[in-house]
């Protein structure tokens, strides 16, 4: 009877993380870089500015995004091909993985960290899983019209155990309340033509969706759902034609600076400054091209902007005190994404076609490091774990 016991001991040793023998470490300064074509992610240390591990065999990561567990130990990776992978950052290994859709664009983690939701194109809808086991908890089909289903975009978590998301084809915003053991309670709102993405205010109150099929933005106030969706629209000058959009803007939190939202326009080469009280567009800042990401530094003093083709080799930095572009950087070809360290002293920038991630000091704009990465796209740091709507 000793044999099975002996085997059990060996099995346990085989599964012990390699870091158990090494120093203990925290995960608060860790992050993930998506290597979109290689189907791999790098795990990086933002204090040391180095790679500490990698996880491979993750499928099609062409639009992969990441959210983090509440304890900052795990990254949940949402792959374009519909794969959902729970990655252990400390052991650089896959804790759990499943195929949950054919085509997926992102996901979110709930307010209490217990649920993971996925934003799916095919089949159109949102699926909800236990964050621990990845067991399916709910399947919300994005049905509309006469038996049609819509692509789902702009999925975020919200207070009150809710997820908020937009239906691109249906032109709607849905608010789903999810409690374990109960069926989801879903409220639906007409938003506007083709909401293509959305973000949440830092307090989890305002959900802002960008519209592609018509001008303007759609805003839902979660404290006043009865009021429905509000439209935010600039006065357009005559002859203000829409320009071709080679890449949609990607709305991602961190866009509220004091009393003003800084939001990318779609089809216009400009940034819209929106007063958060009146929802009026108070300023339109002309830009070099179609903005994709518009992200505020954690201290709100700067806004960093990257662009779609053909201007996707540059970064512009706006000083929020003067509302002017104060610096332009050219890190290389195809600047896809950027992520600030939690208090914003550094920014990490993925430069896809140079197979590089560049780390800049955000005060001096000096390069602090260059890391090799295979066609890097998204960069995500664990501090996101404690932000509503990220």
């Amino acid at each position, binding site marked *: 009877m000793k044999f099975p016991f002996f085997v059990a001991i060996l099995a346990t040793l085989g599964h012990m993380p390699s870091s158990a023998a090494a120093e203990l470490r925290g995960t608060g300064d860790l992050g993930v870089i998506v290597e979109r074509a290689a189907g791999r992610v790098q795990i990086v240390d933002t204090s040391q500015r180095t790679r500490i591990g990698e996880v491979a065999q993750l499928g099609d990561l062409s639009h992969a995004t990441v959210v983090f567990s509440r304890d900052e130990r795990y990254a949940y990776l949402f792959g374009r091909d519909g794969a959902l992978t729970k990655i252990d950052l400390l052991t650089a290994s896959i804790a759990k993985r499943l195929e949950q859709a054919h085509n997926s664009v992102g996901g979110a983690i709930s307010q209490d960290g217990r649920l993971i939701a996925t934003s799916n194109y095919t089949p159109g809808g949102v699926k909800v899983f236990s964050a621990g086991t990845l067991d399916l908890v709910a399947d919300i089909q994005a049905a509309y019209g006469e038996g049609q289903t819509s692509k789902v975009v702009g999925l975020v978590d919200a207070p009150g155990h809710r997820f908020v998301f937009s239906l691109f084809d249906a032109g709607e915003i849905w608010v789903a309340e999810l409690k374990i053991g109960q069926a989801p309670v879903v409220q639906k709102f007409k938003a506007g033509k083709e909401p293509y993405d959305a973000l949440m205010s830092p307090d989890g109150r305002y959900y802002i969706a960008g519209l592609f099929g018509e001008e303007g933005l759609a805003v839902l106030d979660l404290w006043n759902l009865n009021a429905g969706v509000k439209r935010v629209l600039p006065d357009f000058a005559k002859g203000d034609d829409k320009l*071709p959009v080679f890449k949609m803007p990607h709305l991602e939190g961190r866009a509220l600076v004091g009393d003003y939202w800084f939001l990318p326009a779609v089809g216009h080469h400009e940034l819209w400054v929106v007063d958060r009280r009146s929802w009026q567009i108070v300023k339109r800042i002309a830009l070099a091209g179609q903005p994709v990401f518009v992200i505020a530094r954690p201290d709100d003093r700067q806004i960093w902007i990257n662009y779609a083709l053909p201007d996707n080799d540059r970064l512009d930095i706006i000083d929020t005190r003067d509302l002017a572009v104060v610096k332009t950087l050219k890190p290389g070809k195809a600047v896809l994404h950027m992520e600030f360290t939690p208090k914003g002293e550094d920014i990490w920038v993925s430069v896809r076609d140079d197979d590089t991630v560049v780390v800049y000091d955000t005060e001096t704009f000096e390069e602090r490091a260059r890391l090799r990465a295979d066609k890097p796209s998204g960069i995500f740091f664990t501090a996101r774990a404690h932000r509503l709507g990220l």
Partner: protein
Amino acid sequence: MSKGSWVAWLPIAVACAAEDPSPKRQQELANLLQQDCGSCHGLRFKGGLGPPLLPEHLQGKPDILLVETILNGRTGTAMPPWRGLVTESEAAWMVERLRSNKTEP
């Protein structure tokens, strides 16, 4: 051939056959196809915001329609016009590549 007569044949040569881009340009276009077209159509062309572009989806659609879609976009959809970023013969080369499902640059 003298320079003059070579130039006279050029428009016909372009019209008759999609002249292959230079190897360096081919590399750039293959990268554009996979990475930038792939942003909406999927890195493996299985679709995303845009429809899938695998050979079975392109079957029955004439080259001229696909080249025209690349150059002029599709009004009312998210497909932008790429004219100015790629030439007509480059668009034809990209269509051929999609039809043969060569996805790696």
